[in-house]
C-alpha cells in the first residue's frame, strides 16, 4: 500500500489521470477497430509539431517567471519570419532556415522588452502575460491587414492587399521536416525529420541548462533571495529566460505550421498558449519546477489523448465532442496547477 502511494506521488495525479483516460480511449479504439497504424502516425506527427511550443515553457519556468502565457508573442514573430521567407519565394529547407533566422532576432528583441516589463511586475507575470499575449495577437490582426506583402500566395486574391486568414505552405515550406528521411514501418509513417528536430531542440535546452549560464539562470529562478546573495543578477537571468522562451515559441510555430501545411494568421494564435501550458503541466511540471522529460511525456500524453479521442468520440457521441474534451482537460489541468499550494508566490 505504501509503495502504491509512493508510486502515485512519484507519477503525480495529472499524469495518472490523463494516462488512465488515454488507456480507456485506446481500449475503446481497439474495440471499435479503428485503424491503429494511422492513429500512431498521427500521434507521432502531432507530438513533433507541438513539442517545441511546449518546450518554450521550460526556460520561463526555470528562470522563475512561471508559465509563459505570453507565448503568442513568440508565435507572431515566427509567423512574420515564415511570411517573409514566402514573400521571397523561398522553398524547402532554405525557406525553413530563413524563416527561423528571421524569426530569432525578432523574438529576441520582443522577448527582451517583455522580460524587462516582467521584471517590474514580479508576482503577477501570468495574469499580465496572458493579456499581453492577447493584446499582441489582436494588435497584429491590424498589422496582417496592412502589412506590405506582395506575393499572391499571401494576400487576398480580391483587392490586392491584406494577408489571407490561412496561407497554404504547399509550394514553400510545407512538410519539409515531416518528409525528411521519412519511412514506413507496418503502416506507420514516421516523420523522422520532425522528431529529430524536436529532439535537437530538447537537447539544446537540456545542454543549456547544464552550462554555467544555464545553472545561474536556474538558481535565479529557484530562489531569488539566495541567488541575489550569491551575486547573481536575478533580473538579467529572468530576461534571458523570457528571451529563450519567446525564441522557442517562434521556432515552434514555424515547425508547427510546416507540419500543419498552413500558416494561421489573425485570431488563430489567440489561445495558443493554453495547450502548451496544459501539456507541460500534464507532464508533471508545476509553476516553478520543470524538466525536459515533463515536456516529452506531457506533449505525448496530451496529443495522444486528442488524437485517439477524435475517432472514438465521433463514433460514440454526436457533434464535436473531441474539442469539448480538449477544452475540459486542458483548462482543468491549468486550474489544478494554479490552485496547488506548492505553487509558491509566482502568479
Amino acid at each position, binding site marked *: 500500500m505504501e509503495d502504491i502511494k509512493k508510486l502515485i506521488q512519484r507519477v503525480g495525479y495529472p499524469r495518472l489521470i490523463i494516462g488512465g483516460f488515454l488507456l480507456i480511449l485506446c481500449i475503446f479504439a481497439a474495440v471499435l477497430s479503428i485503424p491503429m497504424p494511422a492513429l500512431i502516425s498521427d500521434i507521432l506527427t502531432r507530438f513533433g509539431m507541438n513539442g517545441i511550443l511546449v518546450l518554450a515553457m521550460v526556460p520561463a519556468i526555470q528562470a522563475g517567471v512561471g508559465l509563459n502565457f505570453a507565448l503568442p508573442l513568440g508565435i507572431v514573430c515566427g509567423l512574420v519570419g515564415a511570411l517573409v521567407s514566402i514573400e521571397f519565394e523561398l522553398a524547402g529547407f532554405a525557406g525553413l532556415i530563413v524563416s527561423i533566422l528571421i524569426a530569432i532576432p525578432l523574438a529576441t528583441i520582443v522577448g527582451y522588452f517583455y522580460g524587462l516589463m516582467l521584471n517590474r511586475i514580479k508576482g503577477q507575470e501570468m495574469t499580465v502575460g496572458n493579456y499581453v499575449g492577447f493584446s499582441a495577437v489582436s494588435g497584429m490582426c491590424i498589422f496582417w491587414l496592412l502589412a506590405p506583402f506582395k506575393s499572391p500566395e499571401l494576400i487576398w486574391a480580391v483587392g490586392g492587399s491584406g494577408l489571407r486568414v490561412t496561407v497554404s505552405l504547399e509550394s514553400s515550406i510545407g512538410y519539409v521536416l515531416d518528409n525528411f528521411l521519412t519511412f514506413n514501418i507496418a503502416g506507420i509513417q514516421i516523420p523522422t525529420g520532425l522528431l529529430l528536430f524536436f529532439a535537437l531542440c530538447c537537447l539544446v535546452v537540456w545542454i543549456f541548462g547544464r552550462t554555467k549560464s544555464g545553472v545561474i539562470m536556474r538558481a535565479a529562478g529557484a530562489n531569488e533571495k539566495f541567488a541575489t546573495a550569491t551575486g547573481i543578477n536575478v533580473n538579467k537571468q529572468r530576461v534571458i529566460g523570457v528571451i529563450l522562451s519567446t525564441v522557442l515559441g517562434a521556432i515552434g510555430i514555424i515547425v508547427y505550421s510546416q507540419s500543419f501545411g498552413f500558416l494561421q494568421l489573425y485570431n488563430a494564435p489567440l489561445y495558443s498558449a493554453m495547450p502548451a501550458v496544459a501539456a507541460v503541466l500534464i507532464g508533471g511540471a508545476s509553476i516553478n519546477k520543470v524538466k525536459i522529460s515533463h515536456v516529452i511525456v506531457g506533449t505525448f500524453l496530451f496529443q495522444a489523448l486528442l488524437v485517439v479521442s477524435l475517432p472514438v468520440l465521433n463514433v460514440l457521441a454526436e457533434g464535436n465532442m473531441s474539442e469539448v474534451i480538449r477544452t475540459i482537460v486542458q483548462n482543468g489541468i491549468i486550474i489544478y496547477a494554479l490552485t496547488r499550494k506548492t505553487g509558491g508566490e509566482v*502568479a
Partner: protein
Amino acid sequence: MDNNVKTQEVKNKNEFFEKYIFPYAVPIVFLVLCGIGFYYSGLHYTFVLNEVIGRLARNSFLVISLIIPVIAGLGLNFGIVLGAMAGQIALFFVTDYAVKGIAGLLLAFVISTPLAIIFGYLTGQVLNKSKGREMITSMILGFFANGIYQLVFLVMAGTIIPFKNKDLLLSTGVGLKNSMDLAGVRYALDDLWKIRPFTGIAVPISTLIVVGILCVALTWFLKTKLGQEMRTVGQDMHVAGVAGIDVDKTRTIAVIISTVLAAWGQIIFLQNIGTLNTYGSHEQVGLFAVASLLIGGASIKKATYGQALIGTFLFHMLFIISPMAGQNLMGDSQIGEFFRVFVAYGVIGLALLLHAWQDKNKK
C-alpha cells in the same frame, strides 16, 4: 518673491492634476478617442446616441456585477462567465416551457438564482485556493466551465435533461441547437416602459430603472456590516483575519453575489438581443465587462458604479463608431473591428500592468 509665486503656481497645478486629471486619465483618453472616432465615422448623432443608450441599458448590469469582488480584493472576476451560463440555462427552460413576456423574464431570474449561487460557491472555493492569482484562475475557470457547459448541453440535453420543445434540439434529438430564438421574452423588460423623447431615440426607462436600483442597492450593501467586512478583507486579508473576520467565507460570498448579478445581467442582456447563441453568448461576457469597467477608470483594487456606467458608455460608443471610422480613415472597416478588440484586450493588459507596477513600487 517671484520664485515663490512660481513654485506656488506649480504646486497648485500639480494638485489640480492629481486631484482632477489623474483619476480620470483613462476615461479622458477614451473620451478623446471616441470624439475623434465619432468625427471620422460620419454617423448621425441620433443614431449613435440611440445605440449607446440601448447598449448602456443592456450591458451595465453585467459590468456592475464585477464591482463587489474588486472591493473584496479578488480583483476582476472573469468568472462572471459562469453567472452568464446560469442565466442562459434559465432562459433555456423558460423558452422550453414557453413562458412569455415579463412572467417568463421573472421566472428566468428565479431559476437562474440558485444555479448561480451554486456556481458562485464553487468559483469561490477555487479562488480561495489560488490567492494572489485569482484573475488568471477565474479566467481559466471560465474556459473550463465552458467545456463542461458544452458537454452538458451537447450530450445530456434531450437525453438526461428533458426538453418538451423538440425545435430547440438538434435534428438527432440530442443536444441543443446552436442558436435559440427568445421571441417569448424579447424586449420583455425594455418594452415595459419605453419613451421616445425625439425621433430616432428610444429610451428603455424600465431597464435603466433596474440598473439604478442595483446601484442604490450596491451603495447600501457596502454600508452594511458584511459590506464593511468585504472592504476590510479587500484592504488586507491578514489584518481582516486577525480582526476575527472569516476571510474565506467573506470572499466566497462576494463571488456568489457577483455570479448571481451576472446571471441576471445576462438575462437582461439577452432579452434585448432577442436570440441566444447557445454555445457562444457567454464567452465574451467577461472580457467585455472587464474592459468596460477598466475604461471607466476603475482599477483592480477600486471600482464604483459610476466608473462602471461611464466605462460601459465609452466602450460601447467605441464599439459603434470604430467600424465606420476605420472604413473612412483607412478604407477598411475590418481595421475598426480589429481595433476595438485590440482596445478590449489592450486596456485590460495595460490596467493589470500598471496595477502590478504600482504595487511593486509601493513595496
